[in-house]
């Protein structure tokens, strides 16, 4: 372990996502980095969490990384599998503690776009996936953690389409719109971790990764980032032990945590 390579940006994201999870929680996950993070959390600080999926899969035995949310690794010897409508119903009814969502664009209030790049849904520049379960989880989950790569074309003043509501126009507008839960509690990127200022609900730096100055994070953002009081903390780095678990136990094939082109 002594000559172990330092964490790459994807491993940093996976590790910091895992820290958002507390033991004994019910965690709603999709595939990709949230899945890696949830399993890492289970193998480190949160051994008693329960994973649930939009495919209706509940509490599978650990296996490898699934190729699809509907695939056997998400329902490996599950005690039961719910219908999709009932699976989201768990989030409405208060049985889901935390959910993870990805995005193509995000604004300062944590509103998310996974629909399109462009201004006209009937004639976009690029049509993206649409909501999937993104809107459902953002509408219903008690806490949401948003995850994505940070650049000025992803962190934008105004998203091209509001697929999922974070804090809408800030203040109490999320609640007024009738949505449930606390909204997004964190945004985890390759540059840092952000939260939302309690009154305005604007995105605020919580910590920046080692070597990332505030100016650099601001340059990678299309809106004005808020600063925390005092010095900006440095994001925790995974210990060699945690990295070892991540690389050899959680995602040994590097399906989600190896950098493109590195394999």
């Amino acid at each position, binding site marked *: 372990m002594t000559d172990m390579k330092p964490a790459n940006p994807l491993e940093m994201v996976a590790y910091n996502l895992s820290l958002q999870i507390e033991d004994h929680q019910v965690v709603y996950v999709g595939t990709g980095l949230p899945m890696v993070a949830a399993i890492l959390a289970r193998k480190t600080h949160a051994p008693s969490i329960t994973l649930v999926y939009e495919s209706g899969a509940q509490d599978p035995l650990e296996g490898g990384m699934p190729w699809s949310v509907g695939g056997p690794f998400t329902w490996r010897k599950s005690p039961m599998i719910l219908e999709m409508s009932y699976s989201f119903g768990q989030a409405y009814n208060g049985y889901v503690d935390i959910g993870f969502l990805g995005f193509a664009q995000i604004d300062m209030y944590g509103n998310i776009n996974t629909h399109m790049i462009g201004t006209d849904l009937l004639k976009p520049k690029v049509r993206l996936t649409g909501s999937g379960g993104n809107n459902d989880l953002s509408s219903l989950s008690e806490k949401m953690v948003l995850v994505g790569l940070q650049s000025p074309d992803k962190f934008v003043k105004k998203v091209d389409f509001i697929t999922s509501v974070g804090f809408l126009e800030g203040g109490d507008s999320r609640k007024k719109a009738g949505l449930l839960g606390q909204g997004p509690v964190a945004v985890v990127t390759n540059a840092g971790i952000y939260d939302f200022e309690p009154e305005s609900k604007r995105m605020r730096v919580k910590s920046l990764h080692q070597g990332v100055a505030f100016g650099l994070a601001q340059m990678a953002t299309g809106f004005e980032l808020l600063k925390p009081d005092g010095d900006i903390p440095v994001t925790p780095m995974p210990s060699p032990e945690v990295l070892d678990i991540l690389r050899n136990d959680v995602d040994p*094939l590097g399906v989600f945590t190896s950098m493109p082109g590195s394999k």
Partner: protein
Amino acid sequence: MAAYDYNREALTNLKIEDTSLLDPLVDFTSAREAHLKKDHSRRDKRLSLKEAIGEFVRDGDVLTDTGFSYVRTPMQAYFEILRQKKKDIQMIGSPNSNQSYMIAFGAARYSHNSYSGAEMRGYDRAYSRAVIEGKTKILSEWSHGTMAQGFKAAHLGVPGLFSKQLLGSDILRYNAYVKVMQNPMRADPDPVVFVPALYPDIAIIHVQAADRFGNARMYGPPINDIALAAAARRVIVTAEEIVPPSDIRSNNKGVVIPFTCVDAVVELPYGAAPGSMPGCYYWSRQWWEKLMRWACQSQKNIEEYFEYWVFSCKDQYDFIEKLGGAKWIANSRRLTKAEEYDNEDLGFDFSYGEFKTIETETGIYY
């Protein structure tokens, strides 16, 4: 007078002038009528795939996706729809990856959509191109959850239900079926979204086993299919195997579709290939990755791909031969059982090469 009071802002945004296109999906009266008019007798409904698609899938139908993207999805039935050159279909893509080729070959003309893509393999370039070029017309945008609620409302036998999803989002502005209302039970302001019960014309549901009447047993995630069997005007069950009625009666765990809903039963081993079928076989991952990363890049590519895999195959057995035949079957059965932990998974190797290296000495499309 029009029968339905659609959300006008959404009609304007979606540029829908002829609202009769939207009617079938929410037309409870005609769905009930269709269900009443079915022959309700317990009778042998077995047909070949060709006959079932020929008789029960019609031009202009609202056809719903079933299974989950590429798990227990009736892929071979969709391919038969292409071979029979059906057209003007309204395809419900939820949770889907199947619209893009249905559009590319002119089978699907309209789109009700909650997702188009292939998870970590990214968004669907062919679907994106079809939207931009106007080859598909979007009739409504949804989330997975609200679409599932629409089907579930039909399953429950109610006109619709109130949801807390979609509020505040732009999806509301591109779906003429759903409406923001005040929760009638609350005195203080409490916005809710009315989601109407949804009735597709046709659902094709692939299962592990069914009897000749249509009682169907399912294993793995049911997703929306139990609700869809009750909702759709017509239902085709395709099954890995047809079992005697006594098998269904004595092993009724997992029997989720009652024969009364079902119009046709098709024995269709490998009916979900190249998708995965729980308990039976694994995805051909290289097939999907080549579809998403190469075939969907251009109309020319997708035509070449489907010429080889669909139009020059008469049935699923031709398709399986091209995947690697018996070797593919044995390997994909081992993979799915290992992943389900139904056989030994210690040291099991799930790795596979990029689709570019498909023509390997093994002859299998992993």
